[in-house]
């Protein structure tokens, strides 16, 4: 929570001025009962018409000044709250974008999106209301009490007692109510989950005729929610009647003892009315304060959730950059291109995903030379994609080391890594914009020829044509493209980067066999030095690779060419045969 206050720093002035002006407004409000008292005692009691008019004029001026002052306060509060939220959002976005894959996995994208949107809005609301009310309400409450002391210190004690009891009662109710509301919120989340479950599983539910069952279990969930809401309601139902009774008891006491003191000539009638008015003001402000506490409580919860995200630091440290000690104009790789030299090597690599006790990869070692094509194959969960992720340094190894062109991958700067490794991910994702903007996402300002070449190699030219050109619009999530089309565009996006290492992570799964074949042929036409990794479940996609790595349960079961593996690796043979039963 405290950490977020940094983002208010720029608005320090507003943060002071807003409550200050609010307090000023409260001061003016506190003067009103005194004016009324004077109007009654001097004006009416003294039958002094000019004084009455003077008092009313003062009331008018107080109202006008109050208006100006409070609008000013609202402005400062709004300015600070919006400024705070804007900076917070921007910083949070930057922070989230800086997280590495491990942290993205642990936090989860839906959580991150909620933090960015509704939580920041709650926090903004909290700051705004805090600046507007948090000083004002207590100020009015205690101000009224102090004013009571200036009128009559004896009666003011009734104020002290009433306020103390009120605070105790309100505090007690809130302290019981807030956890009750939280429990109700949990139940509501359960309702949400149940609805979603019922919708997503509708076919299965119907196929197994579980309709009645699922209705019954949903009713159970709503029962729980209703029960908890009622419980919370029982507590908060006490709030209004109790505060009402307490304040009015206070007024009764004030008028009674006020009456006694008027009799003995210590107080005037007008002053008793003023005290009565002060008591009423307390009630109004106290209710506002209670509501404010609820708002602030929500805002605090949001703020805590946000700062928890800020507390997550990326576990990956960027390398200082590898110095290729050549003249800087030269392409990084040309300089190192003694043909056949080492491109990627894994040295005794082990890896476990964050939060998982089991290793996803164990003691993997292999060397891939420049210009080679490598196939990686294995069953579900065997660690194929994990290897791809490690080559791109999406994760850091937990044991051993990954080396690119002879340098530890951790020594490269992120920019260098981006210029070395291009990955086509398993799940093809397009962003809203145009086909071109999608392809240029990583490549930047490359020439049109490069783009066209990438499109062609990715077998995407017919898509581009079909959609009406490279400037064709891509809707959010690429929903106007089919799965296969998305895959081909995302392959083009990676190829346009012209990196010396290209990884295709099962990225032709949605392509039919014929297109897949043309794609593989096109990949052969990449610059000679390009090292290509193809991850696939089909042996047909990789059997012509220079090297095939066979994985099972994170272990390397074999490495070699198709022919070698057929002889030496039972697992590979089994996979191959399972896919090839030509009769």
């Amino acid at each position, binding site marked *: 929570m405290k950490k977020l206050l940094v983002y208010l720093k720029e608005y320090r002035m507003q943060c002071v001025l807003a409550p200050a002006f609010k307090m000023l407004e409260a001061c003016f409000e506190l003067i009103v009962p005194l004016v009324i008292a004077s*109007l*009654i005692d001097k004006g*009416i009691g003294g039958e002094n018409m000019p004084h009455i008019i003077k008092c*009313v004029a003062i009331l008018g001026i107080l*109202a*006008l000044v*109050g*208006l100006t002052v409070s609008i000013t306060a*609202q402005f400062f509060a709004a300015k600070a709250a*919006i*400024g705070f939220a*804007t900076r917070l959002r*921007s910083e949070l*976005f930057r922070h*989230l*974008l800086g*997280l590495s894959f491990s942290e993205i996995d642990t936090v989860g*994208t839906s959580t991150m*999106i909620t933090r*960015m949107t509704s939580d920041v809005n709650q926090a903004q609301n909290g700051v*705004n209301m805090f600046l507007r009310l948090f000083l004002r309400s207590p100020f009015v409450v205690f101000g009224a009490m102090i004013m009571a002391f200036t009128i009559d210190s004896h009666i003011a004690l009734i104020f002290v007692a009433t306020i103390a009891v009120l605070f105790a009662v309100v505090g007690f109710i809130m302290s019981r109510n807030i956890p009750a509301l939280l429990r109700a919120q949990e139940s*509501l989340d359960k309702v*949400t*989950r149940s*609805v*979603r*479950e*019922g*919708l*997503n599983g509708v076919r299965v539910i*119907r196929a197994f005729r*579980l*309709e009645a069952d699922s209705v019954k279990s*949903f009713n159970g969930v*709503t029962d729980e929610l209703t029960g908890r809401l*009622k419980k919370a309601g*029982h507590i908060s*139902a006490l709030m209004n*009647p109790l505060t*009402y009774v307490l304040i*009015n008891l206070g*007024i009764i006491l004030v*008028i009674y003892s006020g*009456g006694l003191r008027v*009799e003995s000539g210590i107080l005037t009638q007008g002053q008793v*009315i003023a005290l*009565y008015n002060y008591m009423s003001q307390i009630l109004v402000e106290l209710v506002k304060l209670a509501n404010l506490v609820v708002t602030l409580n929500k805002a605090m919860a949001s703020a805590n959730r946000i700062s928890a995200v800020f507390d997550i630091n990326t576990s990956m440290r960027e390398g200082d950059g590898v110095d290729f000690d050549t003249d800087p104009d030269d392409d990084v790789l040309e300089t190192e291109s003694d043909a056949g030299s080492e491109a990627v090597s894994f040295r005794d690599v082990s890896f476990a995903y964050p939060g998982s006790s089991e290793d996803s990869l164990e003691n993997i070692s292999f060397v891939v030379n420049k210009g080679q094509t490598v196939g990686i194959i*294995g*069953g*579900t*969960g065997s660690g194929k994609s994990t290897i791809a992720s490690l080559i791109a340094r*999406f994760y850091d190894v937990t044991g051993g080391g990954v080396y690119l062109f002879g340098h530890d991958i951790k020594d490269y700067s992120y920019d260098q890594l981006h210029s070395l490794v291009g990955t086509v991910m398993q799940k093809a994702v397009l962003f*809203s914009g145009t086909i071109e903007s999608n392809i240029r996402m990583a490549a930047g300002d490359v020439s049109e020829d490069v783009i066209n070449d990438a499109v062609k190699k990715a077998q995407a030219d017919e898509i581009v044509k079909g959609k009406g050109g490279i400037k064709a619009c891509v809707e959010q999530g690429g929903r106007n493209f089919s799965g296969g089309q998305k895959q081909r565009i995302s392959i083009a996006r990676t190829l346009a980067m012209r990196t010396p290492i290209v990884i295709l992570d099962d990225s032709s799964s949605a392509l039919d*066999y014929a297109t897949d074949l043309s794609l593989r042929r096109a990949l052969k036409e990449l610059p000679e030095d390009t090292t290509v990794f193809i991850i696939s479940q*089909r042996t*047909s996609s990789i059997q*012509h690779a220079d090297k095939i790595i066979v994985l099972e349960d994170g272990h390397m079961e074999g490495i070699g060419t198709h022919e070698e593996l057929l002889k030496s690796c039972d697992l590979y043979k089994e*996979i191959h045969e*399972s*896919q090839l039963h030509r009769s």
Partner: protein
Amino acid sequence: MKAKNNVQTEYGGNTGRELVKYLKKHGFLVVLSVALALFSSLTALFVPVLFGKAIDSILSDMGSVVNCLIRVGCVIGVTALMQWVMAMVNNKVTYEVTQDIRNDAFEKIQKLPLNYLDSHSTGEIVSRMVADVDTLADGLLMGFTQAFTGIVTIVGTIYYMWTLSRMTTIVVVCVTPLSLFVANFIAKHTHDMFITQSVTRGEQTALIDEMIGNEKVVRSFGYEDEALERFNEINDRLAVCSLKALFYSSTVNPATRFVNSTVYALVALVGAIRVLGGHITVGSLSALLAYATQYTKPFNEISGVVTELQNAFACASRVFALIGESEEEGSQIYDIKASDGSSDDEDGIKGEVDIEAVDFAYVKDKPLIEDFSLNVGSGQTVAIVGPTGSGKTTLINLLMRFYDTDDGKISVDGKDIMSLTRQEHRKRFGMVLQDTWIKQGTVLDNIRIGRPDATREECINAAKEAHAHSFIKRLPQGYDTVLAEDGGDLSVGQKQLLCITRVMLALPPMLILDEATSSIDTRTEIRIQKAFHKMMNGRTSFIVAHRLSTIMDADIIVVMRDGHIVEQGSHEALLKKGGFYSELFEAQFAH
């Protein structure tokens, strides 16, 4: 904008009636609540008069002061009691009504045609059932308490003021609408600012959704800087329009308060003059001043309540639109545990499926399946292959009666499937889909979906046959491991294995497998295939598969394209024919 308004009013009429239907169940409590609101407002309004009298008596006689105060105490006690009962009643009514609405909506979902569910996003329906009903509940609570008590308070105050001083009353009644006018004026002028704000916010959310939702891709391309730049551009625009919207809307409070203060000052002036003229007492003036503050409060609140109520009604109309959707005919649902005693008719099923000249379209003028006919003999295995969009899954939808044919008929053992209820019909099929569905609960619960009365042993045996046993065993609590929504940590392949286990347990007379093993690696797949083969023995089966290797043994391979059968026959026959199927098949092995 206009169209939207029309829709709202169109629902509006029904919405009120629907709401009343739900409230009727609590008829007595609703009447009680209204009565309590009426009386508690009136008694509360009586308090200032009594205080006024007490203040007047201060100057004369302390005895009658005490008298008055005792009466005040009683009135306050009664008022507070009524307020408390009213709050409890309102809670009960509101929460129970919203629960009824939610339950009805959920039951409705179970009865709606899939057509409706497929064409509405999950998020949309969830937000109707959760967020909209919540807003409705808030609105109901607010409406119940504030709108009604507000009106009673206004009317009551005018009455009491009238008895105290007509002149003051007239002044107050004439001036107060000013605050409504001011609030309205500001609301009208901030409306556009709020629209701009929500549009910009929507734009930003879309960007967040894209960039954070696909953060791994963003990171892998080093696109962070551009993303941040785009974000900040929107963020800065949002800051400007939010500030405007927030500030201008927050002037409502000070402005109405200003009007109130003016009213207060006027009451003081007129009241004081009346006191001087001997028409009213000082105590009455104090009561009038108290009324002046009390009277304007509901006016300020009412503008809030009106928006809240409008909002609640808009939300209610969305929920009621869902509840009011027309159901599938014959969609009464029965509890199968209760009614599923006899399974003798299952044994009698041979499983001959005849599809005759079936036409079907999801959208009326875009026919998908046309004049489709297929005869499947008892115990045969039918494989359906073809490119995406060729109608494979649609065929499954029709077989399971998730959708009904537009024309033509499907019959099982010579009996039109339309002559049975959907539940009776579906009982004869076991189905595994590509999209796995895991419900919250233990692994065992999930397997038992296949047959609710199965014993633990039977479930474990089924799991063994489906090759799911080995991974289930390794879960922390084995078969009693609680799975989170949508399977949580299980891989897609593991989820598919669980779904297959269900069918292995159910052992229905006919089988439908729609890409059931698409995420399972080929070696495990082959083992499952063996189990499937054993199960399919003597059972009519329909298989949709992407990997042609898995369907070569089928009795009939149906090759579909654009809703028609283009080829049909055994694997060998089709290969020999050298048509579309052999093209698809050869491509697998080309390099």
